């Protein structure tokens, strides 16, 4: 089945009729009607808890760059400046910033400018750990800007091996380059192109990270404008692009290679529906992800059933994990 046929098969996902309850809640919390209708199906009893937490700003968090500084020393340096940090037990390099001074801001300290840390959402740190690159891996980062995950991959590889970081947008590549240099990542080739162009070669990668461009529906606590930003037809456009990208990732992955697919969206249309395509149409397998305070992938959504393999993926929700909404899945080509 090709991508167009697959989209047709799952057309039902994109025909949502908001109920009266959905419309009421949409007005109360400032969301689009169709979004709430979907949340009713996803959250059930937890719906209002979820909607409430979408309006609570998240605690800032940082990833310590232990290539450049011992993390305890970083904590001590920042505490001397009036910050208070709390180690996140489930992330090797993650810290919550529970108190900040008036000045300097978190993004203007000497330590930040020297690449000792990256300001990064907690759930956003998970995909590189799940990919777990080794020092001799050849890694492809398919949509690399602004560089949080590229630089984290480089850190995990101790600046060895090689990362091909691809970014399509001319505007976004500038911040990517800046972050790569600030964090002193030395094993990165940066390429401005559409990742899909790479399938014209015989290139094969042992590990691929596809942190796909998405609606950002998981970032509502950080950016309330997203409550009304994405229409159902926008979501369908993202879905189609994500299907193309995951197909590209499959083609570029070596045998027995690992692909991590992630989005900063909690929309099943951008998450399980895309992974389901990789399972059912590309023959990929998922690996269970453990060790994170996250929920399993949704096997069913809006009366549409996905492969039971998607349960091995993980979802982060603001009201449960106290993180941005996020989706992570590890797939194998076998």
């Amino acid at each position, binding site marked *: 089945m090709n991508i167009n046929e697959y989209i047709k098969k799952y057309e039902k996902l994109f025909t949502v009729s908001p109920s009266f309850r959905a419309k009421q809640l949409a007005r109360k919390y400032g969301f689009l009607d169709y979004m709430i209708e979907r949340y009713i199906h996803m959250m059930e009893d937890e719906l209002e808890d979820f909607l409430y937490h979408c309006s609570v700003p998240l605690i800032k968090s940082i990833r310590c760059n232990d290539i450049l500084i011992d993390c305890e020393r970083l904590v001590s340096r920042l505490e001397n400046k009036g910050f208070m940090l709390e180690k996140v037990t489930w992330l090797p390099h993650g810290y919550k910033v529970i108190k900040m001074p008036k000045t300097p801001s978190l993004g203007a300290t*000497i330590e930040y400018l020297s690449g000792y840390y990256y300001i990064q959402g907690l759930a956003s740190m998970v995909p590189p750990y799940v990919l777990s690159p080794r020092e001799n891996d050849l890694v492809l980062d398919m949509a690399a800007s602004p560089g949080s995950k590229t630089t984290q991959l480089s850190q995990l590889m101790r600046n060895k091996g090689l990362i091909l970081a691809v970014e399509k947008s001319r505007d976004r590549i500038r911040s990517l380059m800046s972050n790569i240099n600030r964090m002193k990542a030395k094993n990165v080739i940066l390429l401005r192109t559409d990742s899909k162009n790479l399938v014209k070669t015989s*290139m094969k990668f042992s590990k691929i990270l596809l942190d796909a461009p998405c609606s950002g529906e998981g970032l509502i606590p950080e950016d309330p404008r997203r409550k009304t930003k994405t229409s159902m037809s926008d979501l369908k456009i993202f879905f189609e692009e994500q299907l193309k990208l995951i197909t590209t990732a499959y083609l570029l992955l070596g045998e027995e290679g690992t692909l991590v697919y992630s989005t900063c969206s909690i929309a099943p249309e951008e998450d399980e529906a895309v992974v389901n395509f990789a399972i059912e149409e590309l023959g990929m397998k998922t690996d269970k992800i453990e060790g994170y305070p996250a929920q399993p992938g949704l096997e069913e959504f809006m009366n549409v059933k996905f492969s039971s393999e998607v349960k091995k993926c993980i979802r982060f929700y603001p009201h449960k994990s106290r993180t941005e909404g996020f989706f992570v899945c590890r797939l194998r080509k076998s």
Partner: protein
Amino acid sequence: MQAKKKLDYKRISLNKFLSIVKQILVSYNCDTEGFSQLFRDKEIFLFSSSFDQIEVFSNKNNDKLNEILTKLRELNLYPYSIGEPIVKILKGKVYPLLPISEYLSQVCKNKIFLNNSKLVEKLTYGKSVLVDFRDVKATCELSDNKKYLIYSEDAIFIAFTRVKMKKKFVEIIPDLDIGWYLREGK
């Protein structure tokens, strides 16, 4: 590298690289032999476009690097960068880029350490500062209009600068400071 014209790149030898950065090494009073040792295990690339830039990749003889570059070239795709950008060459003049500071720090003598964090902060906004001689700890004698690497009291690199000697003060004028990451990278 930022460029509007089409990019191209080629590998260059260590000697060619040293000849290009020679003026920087002289300006900051560096040990050329020590500097060259730091690059012996690296692949060095000269990127050309509307200006030239030298970039280095950490592992020489990296098969994966060669394979990727060859395959990209077959598609007529040219990397935006390979590893770390080290210097920029514009109209024949060579300018250090921030990643080279890590290497210069190890082999150069023209260093100034500032124990005043407010002045350090001001430098990261790209602004000149006037420093009382008592607040300056230099690893060599200060001379007017010479280039110096500036560090915080605890040896974090802050800026490439030149200094002007005043009666009681030293004026430190940043050429490029780490605040660039904040100003240009967003």
